[in-house]
């Protein structure tokens, strides 16, 4: 890994998904904000990709969230509300028809209490979407077999959850995300459950390609400032991963100062 990472600390460290290159590794969810706050948060986050949901339109020319998206941002519509692969595909097609590209976050959830994704239906939906030319990013429970199925099905990245969505509980699935980073040859984007910048930083330190957050920002005392904090944390964690963390001594100490030349 060290060799692969070497030299990527500077200008050439890009996140590549579906043939598109991103400098930012902070993907922002746009839920739970006012439209004005959405814009402020996206700008402070330096985000180059933001998720959206598809819902029935209301009558009347009310303001549209697309008018608050910074120019050039990649939109990642989600399939929230889908309980089966077929429903997810239907939402993906509608999202594409609105006309903002081929990216889609595949989200299939049947559990109503913990809102945990259904990996089986998600893998099926990923396959169906990829076959139709979508750049499919499945949101999933971090299970290695399921991630392999999704990669095989044509996923452009894998989005394992850190904790139940909207919970701000942090990186509860850390060791399993580590396995995905090691075993899956796609960007691993930790999505859901990340509550604090330190947790986002840790996800990046263990090799996540990006972090997605929404509720952590939206429920912060000052959402715009918290977006800045996450941005810094994600950048720091990325650099730490590229640098390669120092080793841990289990049972002894090691002086950092020289052990020679003491004053006598």
């Amino acid at each position, binding site marked *: 890994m060290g060799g692969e990472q070497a030299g990527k600390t500077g200008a050439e460290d890009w996140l590549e998904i579906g043939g598109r290159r991103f400098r930012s590794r902070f993907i922002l969810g746009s*839920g739970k904000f006012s439209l004005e706050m*959405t814009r402020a948060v996206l700008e402070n986050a330096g985000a180059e990709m933001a998720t959206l949901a598809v819902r*029935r*339109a209301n009558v009347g020319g009310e303001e*549209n*969230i697309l008018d608050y998206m910074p120019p050039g941002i990649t939109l990642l519509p989600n399939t929230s509300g889908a309980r089966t692969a077929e429903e997810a595909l239907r939402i993906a097609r*509608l*999202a594409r028809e*609105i006309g903002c590209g081929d990216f889609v976050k595949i989200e299939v959830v049947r559990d109503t209490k913990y809102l945990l994704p259904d990996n089986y239906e998600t893998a099926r939906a990923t396959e169906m979407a990829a076959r139709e030319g979508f750049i499919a990013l499945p949101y999933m429970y971090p299970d290695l077999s399921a991630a392999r199925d999704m990669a095989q099905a044509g996923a452009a990245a894998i989005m394992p959850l850190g904790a139940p969505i909207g919970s701000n509980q942090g990186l509860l699935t850390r060791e399993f995300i580590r396995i995905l980073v090691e075993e899956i040859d796609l960007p691993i984007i930790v999505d859901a459950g990340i509550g604090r910048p330190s947790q986002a930083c840790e996800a990046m330190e263990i090799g996540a390609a990006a972090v997605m957050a929404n509720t952590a920002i939206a429920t912060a005392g000052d959402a715009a400032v918290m977006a800045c904090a996450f941005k810094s944390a994600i950048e720091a964690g990325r650099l730490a991963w590229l640098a390669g963390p120092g080793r841990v001594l289990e049972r002894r100490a090691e002086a950092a100062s020289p052990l020679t030349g003491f004053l006598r």
Partner: protein
Amino acid sequence: MLVNGQEKKLQTPATLMEFLRAEGYGPERVAVERNGAIVPRPDYDAVRLAEGDELEIVCFVGGG
């Protein structure tokens, strides 16, 4: 007609584009399913709505 699950009387014969404009939907910001099939935006002017049509009109909203 049934529009987003609500009964809606079709006032006059209208194209989908005319209906969207009359109802205040922004045609550039929505996607439309008519009787279960997506209508591509270039066809909005050509599609004539009929009594009994079921429309789903969707747009983007904030979401994670």
